[in-house]
């Protein structure tokens, strides 16, 4: 078995508790570079908490969190900032800055983290908006966009700094099937065209089926089963049967 630093993401016996509630109870998983990994589980199973550990929005009570060869739970200051700049994070709500236009949302990151000129930034922003199919929304504000459009703009913001790893927190929640498919296909294109490793947490079966190379099923704070989407769908376990509705 390879060392933790060889994986794109590696969690080793991660525990997390909030007050009396134990959310993660020894989660261990590895993500191969270039793969699209999906972590599934019912609501309240600790999926979002797990994802937040990968960018050090939360610290584990116990265990190790490795991302792109670095131990995130021990990183501080500039080293942490550098690592975070290699990670794109798509929030469940989109988390677009609502006082800024779509263009400003993207430019905000480029202006602060790159040395690109104004014209170069403009080109990169329009190219990225074009890639998500929403170039025409550049001057609009997040409140003026539909749910699906907000997700795609949030995805554009997540990739604007050309990250090596993308984390998706429920990327298709609340979207209609057509929008689910559109967002899921963008995620697949990012893996295929740019070779970006991704970790997605979702309970959306359609999305998971389209994007997953490998699936981990989180149940009661532990990884219950790992494998392909089809293997998990056919697995004979009450929690999985209940989840897949079979």
């Amino acid at each position: 078995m390879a060392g933790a630093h060889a994986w794109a993401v590696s969690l080793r016996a991660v525990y997390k508790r909030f007050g009396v509630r134990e959310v993660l109870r020894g989660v261990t998983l590895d993500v191969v570079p270039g793969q699209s990994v999906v972590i599934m589980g019912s609501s309240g199973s600790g999926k979002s908490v797990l994802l937040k550990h990968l960018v050090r929005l939360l610290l584990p009570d116990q265990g190790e969190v490795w991302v792109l060869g670095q131990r995130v739970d021990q990183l501080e200051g500039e080293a942490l900032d550098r690592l975070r700049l290699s990670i794109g994070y798509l929030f469940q709500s989109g988390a677009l800055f609502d006082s800024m236009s779509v263009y400003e949302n993207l430019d905000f990151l480029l202006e602060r983290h790159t040395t690109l000129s104004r014209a170069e930034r403009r080109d990169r922003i329009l190219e990225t908006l074009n890639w998500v199919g929403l170039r025409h929304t550049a001057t609009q504000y997040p409140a003026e966009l539909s749910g699906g459009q907000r997700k795609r703009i949030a995805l554009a913001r997540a990739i604007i700094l050309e990250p090596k790893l993308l984390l998706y927190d429920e990327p298709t929640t609340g979207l209609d099937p057509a929008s689910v498919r559109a967002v899921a296909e963008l995620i697949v294109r990012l893996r295929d065209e740019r070779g970006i490793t991704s970790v997605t947490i979702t309970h959306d079966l359609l999305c998971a089926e389209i994007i997953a190379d490998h699936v981990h099923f989180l149940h009661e704070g532990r990884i219950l089963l790992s494998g392909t989407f089809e293997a998990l769908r056919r697995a004979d376990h009450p929690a999985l049967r209940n989840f897949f509705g079979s």
Partner: protein
Amino acid sequence: MPTKPEVEQGFPVRAPEPIGRTWMMRIGSLVLFMGRFFREVWRPPYEVRELVRQMDEAGSKSFVLTAAAGIAIGVVLAMQSRGTLARFGAEAVLPNMLALSVFKEIGPVITSLVLAGRLGAGMAAEIGSMRVTEQIDALEVAALKPFHYLVIPRVLACMVMFPILTTWTNMIALAGGYVESVISANMDFRLFWNSAFSSLRFADLLVDTFKTSVFGFLVGIVSCYLGYTVRGGTREVGQAAMQAVVLSSLLILLADVIIVRLSLFLFGGL
């Protein structure tokens, strides 16, 4: 042991605590937040553009409101004092009394309370809604230091703008008093203003105007703290906005007593 991440600072998710203990924890947490401000304010990145934007937000949009407060203070104070002073044959000292009352106490406190209402609620609500919609987390994971971007410029803007707006309000209040004096007693322009400023010492102006910088700090830090540590949804954001006004108003009054006592000790009374 690494420091706690942003999202775990302030109020961690935990089981309900007894009310007294919760309040003690909140006060402790606020003190830590203030400590963090003084630690981080010297460190880059320096968000100068955001500071200017916040000064504009706090300052230029408050001029009309504070001017209205100033006129009311000046006119009402002059009207109410005139009769009493006339009874003792001391109507001539009205400008001195007006200037002393306005510059030393009423102007700074009323202006700060008015600004606490306008700015405190706005800051707590804006930052609180950014917290519950994960925008602060988005800043954090994009290595954009939300404390530097959201908290420090707002607190500094309050510290700079409160004395400026207080001076403005004081002058408007005196002007209001002058207008009342012209209407009621046809007072001479030069006599009024010479008389008003003859009773003020430089130390009074300095201490009593710049104590509002402390009030500005309290309004800024309390409001940002309450917004930054919101957990929940829109209801909690609304509560944070309301608490920001109440708590910063109480702290202004408390700080006023302490600063006046200190200034009397250092510079002596009139």
